[in-house]
């Protein structure tokens, strides 16, 4: 036992008197948890306390005392609390008072099988939610096209501006650097075969079919998708969504529809910009470091990119736009009612969107390959 707090045990016939000395507080130096069971002998029938030399006490004293009394109760020893400070007796009585009982042990540490089962159920629930959300989107668009959807046009314009012109600088910068990198890596390989000019094909095709739409979508997932999840999640926490629903305004039409539509419209436009700027990045490297004339590079790019390639990129970007907005909105609308839940919803929106983008891109590549496009 630590010298700051000491315990003396005096056995007098059937009575064990425990004398507490010094300061029994949480701030005294740490010590190994004492084993109190050795204090009791088979003859002990009564436990009494002497706290006259107890300088100060707090929860630390209470916890140690609880441990001693627990052992005494197990051995059917009578406890005489007379010697304890009055506050201690009150607190012990208060701690034994039953007010609320936990309804079940659902938050206890799960076993491995239990954990797997819970995750499987959660996965099933989330899949179900996604399906229901897709249905809601469909119904919302039906209301939109029949003129029954309530939303603010001002909001819609804001979202168009936010995920279009506002996002353009970062999309442009990243696309330019991607085009630049592609040209550099391509040039090293193609130079070995004296096929430098095909850098234009490489950059042009990669940007229009794959990298332009995909990079724009990934940037928008991190920028706009996260922002949608955080906005809607915070609205959920503040009960703003409930306020809309109780007024009879469909929160889905009011909040999800303008966000989703804005991103579906703007994503192909951003992808077009990303294509052009990425190709310009390749052009920049081709002309400067590979000594390809600008006219030749331009001619080669025009020859390489057909309308089909361009359309493939556009179809992808529309789907990516939908996926980013879908993930942001679903995570925000289904967010819990705490700060932590908003953080989780935002992270989940970005991760899910990126996973969906990559999976759908792989699907598209396979599909277009089968069609020979």
């Amino acid at each position, binding site marked *: 036992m630590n010298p700051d707090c000491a315990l003396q045990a005096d056995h007098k016939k059937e009575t064990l008197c425990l004398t507490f000395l010094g300061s029994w507080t949480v701030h005294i130096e740490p010590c190994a948890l004492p084993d109190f069971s050795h204090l009791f002998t088979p003859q002990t029938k009564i436990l009494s306390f002497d706290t006259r030399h107890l300088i100060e006490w707090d929860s630390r004293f209470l916890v140690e005392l609880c441990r001693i009394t627990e052992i005494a109760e197990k051995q059917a020893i009578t406890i005489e609390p007379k010697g304890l400070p009055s506050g201690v007796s009150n607190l012990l009585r208060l701690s034994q008072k039953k007010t*609320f009982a936990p309804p079940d042990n659902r938050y206890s540490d799960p076993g491995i099988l239990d954990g797997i089962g819970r995750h499987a159920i959660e996965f099933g629930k989330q899949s179900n939610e996604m399906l229901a959300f897709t249905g809601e989107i469909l119904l919302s668009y039906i209301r939109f096209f029949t003129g029954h959807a309530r939303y603010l046009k001002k909001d819609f314009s804001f979202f168009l501006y936010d995920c279009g012109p506002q996002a353009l600088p970062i999309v442009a910068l990243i696309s330019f650097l991607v085009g630049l990198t592609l040209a550099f890596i391509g040039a090293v390989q193609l130079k070995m075969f004296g096929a430098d000019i095909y850098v234009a094909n490489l950059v042009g095709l990669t940007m229009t079919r794959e990298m332009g739409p995909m990079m724009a979508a990934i940037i928008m997932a991190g920028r706009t998708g996260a922002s949608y999840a955080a906005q809607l999640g915070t609205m959920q926490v503040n009960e703003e969504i409930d306020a809309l629903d109780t007024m009879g305004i469909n929160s889905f039409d009011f909040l999800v529809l303008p966000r989703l539509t804005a991103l579906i419209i703007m994503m192909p436009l951003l992808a077009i910009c990303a294509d052009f700027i990425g190709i310009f990045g390749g052009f920049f490297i081709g002309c400067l470091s590979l000594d390809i004339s600008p006219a030749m590079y331009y001619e080669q790019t025009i020859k390489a990119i057909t309308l089909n390639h361009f359309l493939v990129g556009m179809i992808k970007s529309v789907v990516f736009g939908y996926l980013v907005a879908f993930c942001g909105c679903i995570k925000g609308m289904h967010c819990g009612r705490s700060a932590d839940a908003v953080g989780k919803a935002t992270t989940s929106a970005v991760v899910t969107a990126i996973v969906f983008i990559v999976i759908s891109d792989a699907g598209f590549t396979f599909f277009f390959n089968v069609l020979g496009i």
Partner: protein
Amino acid sequence: MTPSDALIEVQNLTMAYGDFILQQNLTFSIKKGSIFAIMGESGCGKSTLLRHLTGLKRPATGDISFSGKNFWKSSKKERIQRMQKCGVLYQSGALWSSMSIGENIALPLQQFTDLPTKLIAEIVDLKLALVGLKGFAKYPPSAISGGMRKRAGLARAIALDPEIVFFDEPSAGLDPISSKMLDDLILELRDSLGATIVIVTHELPSIFALADDSIFLDTETRTMLATGDPNILARESKSLKVKQFLSRSVSLTNQP
């Protein structure tokens, strides 16, 4: 009250947000072991006064002293040590939502003591038992009701056995029975722990049941209108506004 009796002393305090003066010339003291109520109309600066007393906001002018020591003239280390002796229960409980209830209570113990994990877990269980939430350690804050969140917040506030416990509108949003149960709990904890309690409230039943001293802040004059035992103020205060407030009546305005 002699200066030695006073745990908290406020001298000529002015609270302001930029150029806007919220309250001025506040002078009062809070006796050790007492329950002190900060009363007043909505928007009069009760919660701002609490922020000043808990060291979250610096006074525009004036002094706040704890046990005779000026808080804002102390070093940063001393101020932090002083704050560790205070517990605060916020209106919503302000539990950290990323942690379980047990982890919320364990955090101050882990940060400011060297106690072994097992002992901390036992103290957490004891604190939860004291506020009537035995068995809820693993629950996330989102899984319990508002009243239970306040109790859990109280368990966290008393985790380090503070000298002073501040309550920001503890009864707000609670039904009368839960509110009464929380008031009883506050009284029992004060009697057992010997802590000084400072409560911001405008719930009259709580004020009369708990407080043995109080201050009334006025929005119009932007200063304190009265200080003293609310039961006495209700009968004997010279201020009509204080009487109106404590009798929950506007009819007094018509009296001469």
